[in-house]
């Protein structure tokens, strides 16, 4: 009975995403900017899988984003001219690191967890920053570009067609979003909500909390590294800023700005963040101070984020 109104927000989001290459120029943007919204949106959704739905704050997600980016970039530069392989390597690199680091840190809670995620993130940052001969160091990794996709007889020129690349990124975004939504609707996802709501109660229902936190962390990092790989492909470039801790902070800002208790909130937050960044940074170097001011206002007056407000209006 309530199926129609409940599906309505989803339909609206997908319609806006599919039409973005058309409406983006109308508000002064361009196709690459649309791709950046989708890629950052994916990273923010992935972070929010952990933050909003498991209740764990990570300040080190840029590490997995950056591993995805470098995995993809180095595959194309050193290994093989295959976009598909590049993405797979990027995701595997990020996920493998998350499996290892996650296992070490799931016993920590709250600010300690956040601090340790920063620390591990900075390890990866300094490795890429220092290891000039392989990673290109501070100058970033150049001298490669994404390659056209060949799926059997079908060839997609995502190399030169910006719009084609946008839809390629959107397709992967859709797969990832559908995957995360399905996970959250499952008994496993409900258990994550239970841990977010009350860890002690979850434990005394016989749920092995640490193992679930570990899985949630790894799933979140897997999709974050997918976003990172796409980000490198989008720019045909990556540099150590892709794994620096301030990017981790940006992901958190996006999630909180848009509303971390709603599935699409972080995407909205990422959209607002990326557009503001692009529009204001052409006029002033200090664009971050404006984003910061908006962030403070949102947290003070709309603690549930942009979508939290919209939702309250529509249900009230």
């Amino acid at each position, binding site marked *: 009975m309530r199926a129609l109104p409940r599906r309505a927000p989803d339909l609206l989001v997908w319609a806006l995403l599919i039409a973005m290459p058309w409406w983006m120029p109308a508000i002064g943007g361009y196709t690459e900017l649309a791709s950046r919204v989708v890629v950052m949106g994916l990273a923010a959704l992935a972070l929010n899988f952990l933050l909003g739905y498991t209740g764990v704050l990570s300040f080190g997600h840029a590490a997995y984003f950056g591993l995805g980016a470098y995995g993809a970039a180095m595959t194309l530069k050193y290994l093989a001219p295959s976009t598909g392989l590049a993405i797979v390597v990027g995701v595997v690199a990020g996920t493998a690191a998350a499996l290892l680091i996650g296992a070490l840190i799931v016993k920590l809670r709250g600010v300690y967890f956040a601090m340790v995620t920063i620390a591990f993130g900075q390890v990866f940052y300094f490795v890429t920053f220092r290891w000039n001969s392989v990673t290109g160091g501070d100058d970033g990794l150049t001298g490669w570009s994404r390659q056209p996709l060949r799926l059997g007889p079908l060839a997609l020129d995502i190399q030169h067609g910006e719009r084609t690349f946008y839809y390629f990124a959107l397709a992967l975004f859709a797969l990832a979003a559908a995957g995360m939504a*399905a*996970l959250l609707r*499952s*008994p*496993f996802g*409900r*258990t994550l*909500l*239970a841990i977010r*709501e*009350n860890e*002690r*109660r*979850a*434990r*005394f*229902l*016989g*749920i*092995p*909390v640490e193992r*679930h936190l570990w*899985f949630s962390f790894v799933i979140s990092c897997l999709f974050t590294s997918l976003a990172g790989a796409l980000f490198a492909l989008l720019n045909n470039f990556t540099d150590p800023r892709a794994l620096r801790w301030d990017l981790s902070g940006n992901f958190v800002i996006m999630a909180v700005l848009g509303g971390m208790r709603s599935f699409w909130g972080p995407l909205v937050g990422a959209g607002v963040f990326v557009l503001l960044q692009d529009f204001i940074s052409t006029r002033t170097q200090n664009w971050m101070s404006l984003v910061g001011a908006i962030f403070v206002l949102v947290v003070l007056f709309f603690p549930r984020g942009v979508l939290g407000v919209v939702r309250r209006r529509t249900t009230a």
Partner: protein
Amino acid sequence: MTSLLAVDNVTQRFGRLVAVNGVSMLVEPGELHAVIGPNGAGKTTFFNLVSGLFPPTSGRIYFDGQDITALAAHQRVALGIARTFQVTEIFPELTVNENVRIAVEATCGHHLRLFLPRRLEAEVRERTRELLDTAGLAGKSDRLVGELSHGDQRATEIVMSLALEPRLLLLDEPTAGMSDQETYAIAQLIRRLHRERRLTIVLIEHDMRVIFHLADRITVMAEGALLAQGSPDEIGRDESVQAAYLGSPR
């Protein structure tokens, strides 16, 4: 006959504080055993030791003959030990139905599943509905638990523990902070679980009416140590208990 729960000379130190000092206790199957004592007597710490929140400094704990001293909390749950807390521990921003359903799914080992086949889905729903009926919560199943009255939140927590199909239920001050009416409703619920389901229950309680109404046996603790054990009649007559707890007669 072996006791369901046997606690053997258990001690818990926190630094220099001895919270529980050499306490032993036997709980027989089907018994409703009350643990009483003044504030700071170590009752809740004792519960934490039995339920596995932390291991004791010394002493051993046996459940149905098996040494469980070294087992983690979730492993003890799997053996059949469920508990509630002094401060109600529930999932406030989820509905009553979701709260109980999560407990049912956890019990059936579904908590790692990514989807439920139709048969299991029907089973989980049916079991959830049954449990909600037990505590008279069926009419409130779509409300957020955080919005319910204190008494209904307690009832939800007890029902979630029941979902685990426990062989031993530990209730830590289930009527704390409740109105008389709510206290009566919870006491009736506990009595039904004990009488009708033959559930073995250990209960920490301050309300003497509840204790003498429900308990088969009583353990009295004071300053971390065991003071007395016996039937409600024996405890009511015991002079050391009266002196330490009920107040000395003038």
